[in-house]
């Protein structure tokens, strides 16, 4: 009889644990999604700001058509990219194009004195930072989630309900580095 009770107790404990693990996995996955939407908001904001920037800069930078076109192209590519991996690559390229643009701007004092341009530059710099900071948060959450679904015992539950590891939002080192200007 006691033996039966013990088995019953083990089953109950296992069931409670099982539900707990499942719930925590769902919670973690939602956190990843939430963190991703934080990044998405900032990415969209950047896409919205860029046409204004190009419109303002066009008049001053006739000789930099290539740079401006590069941004426009990178932007449309980033906007059509789907999935975290493709998006992080395209957005990384856009960041690189923007970095190049702001370096070139240094040669156009008239543009730099334009009030409209200055406020756009501030907004874009800030958006760029916000992307970086929300990326930190997102990657933290992804790491936590991925660790959880690979480790015992939560990996058993994850396998049963097909929880898949999430992708990191990574920007290639080449684009991340701000080029240094030398005089």
């Amino acid at each position, binding site marked *: 009889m006691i033996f039966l009770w013990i088995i019953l107790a083990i089953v109950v404990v296992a069931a409670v644990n099982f539900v707990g693990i499942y719930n925590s996995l769902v919670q973690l996955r939602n956190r990843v999604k939430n963190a991703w939407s934080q990044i998405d908001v900032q990415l969209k904001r950047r896409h919205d700001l860029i046409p204004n920037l190009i419109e303002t800069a066009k008049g001053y930078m006739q000789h930099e058509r290539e740079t401006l076109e590069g941004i426009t192209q990178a932007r449309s590519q980033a906007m059509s990219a789907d999935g975290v991996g493709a998006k992080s690559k395209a957005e990384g390229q856009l960041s690189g194009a923007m970095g190049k643009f702001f370096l070139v701007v240094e040669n156009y004092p008239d543009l730099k004195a334009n009030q409209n341009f200055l406020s756009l530059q501030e907004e874009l*710099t800030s958006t760029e930072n916000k992307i970086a900071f929300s990326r930190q948060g997102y990657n933290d959450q992804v790491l936590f989630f991925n660790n959880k679904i690979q480790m015992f015992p939560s990996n058993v539950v994850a396998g049963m309900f097909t929880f898949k590891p999430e992708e990191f939002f990574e920007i290639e080192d080449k684009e991340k580095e701000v080029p240094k200007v030398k005089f």
Partner: protein
Amino acid sequence: MQIQMWELIAANRRKSWILFFCMGAALLFLGYVIGESFAKTGGLIGIAIAFVVWSILSLVSYFSGDSLILFMSKAKEVSHEVHPQLFNVVEEMKIAASLPVMPKVYIMPDAAPNAFAVGKSVDKSAIVVTAGLLSRLNRDELQGVVAHEMSHILNRDVRFLTFAGILLGSIVLLSEIFLRSLWYSGSSRRYRSRTSSSGGQAQAIMMIVSIVFAILAPILARLLYLAISRKREYLADASAARLTRYPEGLASALEVISSNTLPLEAANKVTAPMFIVNPLLKKKKKVSALTSTHPPTSERIKILRSMYGAGFLDYQSSFASVKPKASSIIPKSALRSKETLSKRASSIDDSKPKSLKEGVRNVGDLIRAVNGYAFLVCACGLKIKLPSNYKKPQVSCPKCNRNIAVPLVQVAAVVTAAEAAMKKKDKDGVFGVSVNSYTRKGKGWESFSCACGATHSISPVFSAGVMTCTKCGSKTQIKG
């Protein structure tokens, strides 16, 4: 942010309670000796009065301590339009710290560079910076300062400091009132006339004890308070470096702030510990380490500059190399996860004023912007500042006498008042005005044309519901 520094937060809470009771006990004892010095059995009445004072002050400091401090510092809440960069930087740090809500942003109209944070919880907090700080720091430096203040909010330092600051203030206040009442009322003479009886003699002794205690209590309370407040500054520096991944920003900001020679007018003994760099340090050059609310700024800069990365581990090892005798500064729980964070590169930014004159002008403009002034740039290059209650449709330039139209946002404010008055009457059906309408597409600058063909632009700050055409006088309703 995985590391929430729970150990630190728990320790803060514990210390807050200990401090709360120690200071409360000091206050009660002060009440006792003061009461006893006035009458032989006045001690109990004194305790009762002190207890009432204590509970009232505790309640006040809990429910409105932050607004009191904001009021004392004359800071004004600002929106994104007044200083976009400051607002953006606060938002960036909010994201980095994954704070649930955005703290309120205040600007203090003062030329001395400094900053502080207040708030009783993480959800209800505010970050205050002076106009002088904004005009002197570049983007990275400002980010460092905001991150430092954000860390105070995150580590629950602000609640503690708000609370303790007001308790300390009440002890100082009580003892000062007592000492001054002795000085002015000549009450000591009144008691001396009764010293013939032995009871009177006991009272005279009590009097001396109370005077001594009234002098000592504020000092003791302050020492207790300071000992805890200094460690927090280091911790906030460490968190700021981690949040921004750029210790140099905070280091050079601290350098700028500490090289300042202007006095911060709104700061006093009570609010001083809340600032990022002690605003009162200038008056007394040699403050002993025991009575200083802040660690020496040069030491803080040195630690930040010798960090290898941007994580807590880096700060700890840098701290240990600069101050080899001091104990570990970062709680163990935060060091356990051996994360390696590399520093980021500096951002391209040259928003610092080029000359002293420009800096002073920037401060002036900023203070005006905080107070709701509008700025117009004349074709001759002069910047005209209009107070918010300027009502005429145009202004003539004091330098070149050109007439400049006041932007409609300014006029609109006047129009809205008239409009509101009209609407009031319209309820009774006096006016049957039909208005054109325009729906806003977004929140940026937009333009629309009036029925008569004139084009008007709406600024992002435009909040009035109706705009009156300056040409034909017809009204257009702005929706959205």
